[in-house]
């Protein structure tokens, strides 16, 4: 895996740089909008606000387009390199395993690399919004720090559950793919044998879909928990702001809520990616260590 990543390092560096630039431009947008609104309310319109906003938007759109193209290209390049590795190194006779590795797991591992890049960008975004919010209002620091600590414990606590569910899902997928290959080979065999293989295939298909649903259910439950928790934190922060500094009930609130929203989005995204990466780690072991 390290060799594949090394071959793509230039694209990875450019992609991270472009994503970070796009994220920093995104951070300035609520500030610019809030400044525009403040200036409008105070009947002192700033003639530069709209041109600056336009320039920021143009640059952000260009950066996002670039980063999206680079990420898609990188994902495909890594996926094809993994397939190349499997086809030259995996000497297993189990064609079901090969089909699962080539058609299913190579794609998941490749997209996990892109998720790591996204995690870097959303981690930076979360940190930057945390710093901005804390500088603006010290009361914000408490609940946000509590959230950081709890996220860490939550991910550690969920890791085993996610990893086991993922392993089960992949094992079942492999059994199902093997049954398709066996069914194809049985198409020229006597009819009773073909019917038996078709029944086995249908059984594995149902089981693979059931285990995938279970994995999705677990993943949704684990990622929605923090999302609901963040919503409670936002509600608490709003009440704190209103009670401790009621003067904030005005245009500043849009500025705060914009950044709190960004923080929540970045934090939830980070947890979601982390949990998904824990699962994909099993595929990396299967591909590169043959386990």
């Amino acid at each position, binding site marked *: 895996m390290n060799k594949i990543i090394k071959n793509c390092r230039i694209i990875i560096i450019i992609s991270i740089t472009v994503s970070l630039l796009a994220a920093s431009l995104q951070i300035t947008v609520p500030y610019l909008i809030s400044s*525009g*609104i403040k200036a*409008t*309310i105070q*009947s002192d*319109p700033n003639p530069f*606000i709209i041109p600056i*906003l336009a320039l920021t*938007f*143009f640059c952000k*759109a*260009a950066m996002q*387009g*670039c980063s999206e*193209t680079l990420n898609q*290209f990188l994902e*495909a*390049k890594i996926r*094809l390199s993994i*397939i*190349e590795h499997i*086809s030259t190194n995996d*000497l297993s*006779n189990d*064609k079901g395993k*090969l*089909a699962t590795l*080539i*058609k*299913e797991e190579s794609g998941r591992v490749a997209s996990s690399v892109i998720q790591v890049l996204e995690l870097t960008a959303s981690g930076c975004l979360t940190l930057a919004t945390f710093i901005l919010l804390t500088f603006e209002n010290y009361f914000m620091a408490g609940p946000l720090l509590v959230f950081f600590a709890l996220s860490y414990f939550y991910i550690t606590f969920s890791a085993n559950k996610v990893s086991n569910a993922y392993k089960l899902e992949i094992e079942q997928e492999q059994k199902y*793919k093997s049954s*398709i290959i066996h*069914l*194809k080979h049985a*198409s*020229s065999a006597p009819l009773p044998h*073909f019917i038996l293989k*078709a029944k086995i295939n249908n059984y594995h*298909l149902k089981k693979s*879909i059931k285990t995938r*649903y279970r994995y*999705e*259910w677990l993943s*949704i*439950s684990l990622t*929605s928990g923090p*999302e*609901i928790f*963040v919503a409670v934190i*936002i*509600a608490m922060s*709003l*009440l704190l702001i*209103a*009670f401790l500094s009621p003067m904030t*009930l*005005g*245009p500043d*609130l849009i500025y705060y*809520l914009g950044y709190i929203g960004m923080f929540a989005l970045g934090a939830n995204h980070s947890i979601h990616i982390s949990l998904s990466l824990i699962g994909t780690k099993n595929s990396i072991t299967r591909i590169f260590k043959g386990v």
Partner: protein
Amino acid sequence: MIHNFGFIALGVASASVNLSSPFFLGQAIDYYQKNHELPILYLLATCSAFILAPCIRFGAKIYLARSNASTRLELKQRSVNFLIQHDKESLSEGDIIEFIDNDIDGSIYLHHNIYYDISTSIAAILMAFITIFNYHYLLSIAPIAAIAFSSAIYILTRKILNNAYGKYIEENTALTSKILSATHTKTSRPFIEFETLKTSVLDTLWRTQLKISSLEAISGLSFLIGISLLLYIGSELLAINALTTGEFIASAMYVERILIPLGFLIGIYFSTAEALYRRSRVHALHGREKAHE
């Protein structure tokens, strides 16, 4: 299809709860600025809406995963029955798996999730639009301009997008299927054409993705058009006292609530290009199955 009505209803409910928070917040700001007292009830209503929104999303996601599982089973059973028949020539193993698994899994989003996502976005846009129109009809020019710009991009790019990923999917399918057929045994020789085919697949993807990302970036400028017009019209209305501060702040939040789902709709449109092509392959396969019967 009945499932999809459920998703549309959930989407509308989710959008309503999401939009109620800026409404209550706008009311809270107005109340505080008029009376200089904390608007406890409005604040509690805002906080409840903040908490209820992710709870509805959680329920919808579980319901979607369940429906996707049953649709996936039904479609895969049909494809297996048609592609592998007794005493009949069939495609290679790689092609069969691509048709059954990759095409169905790659287009499953279009069966249920898309109804939830689109209904959430359209409901949010409509409700926010009505509220802005009620604050002052002139403010509605801002979201209308943004929507018109996005619609123009949609009309202009529809043809390009329909088959944008076709060549990439066909080349990619052919390559992975060839590899799967070539890597069967311990004695098989490495697949020597790989490097050339890989370069060709990556080249096709690069050109397709660059075109699509550029169009998506241009469509994203609708946000800028909406916000700039809001600031301009808002300043004019405040100058003649046709709008209160609270109304202007709330309408700014509502314009954002239109522009964000609008951006999301643009995202769905551009990101489903590959799924659309894969679904057309599944439809073609099941169409052949019906004709065969």
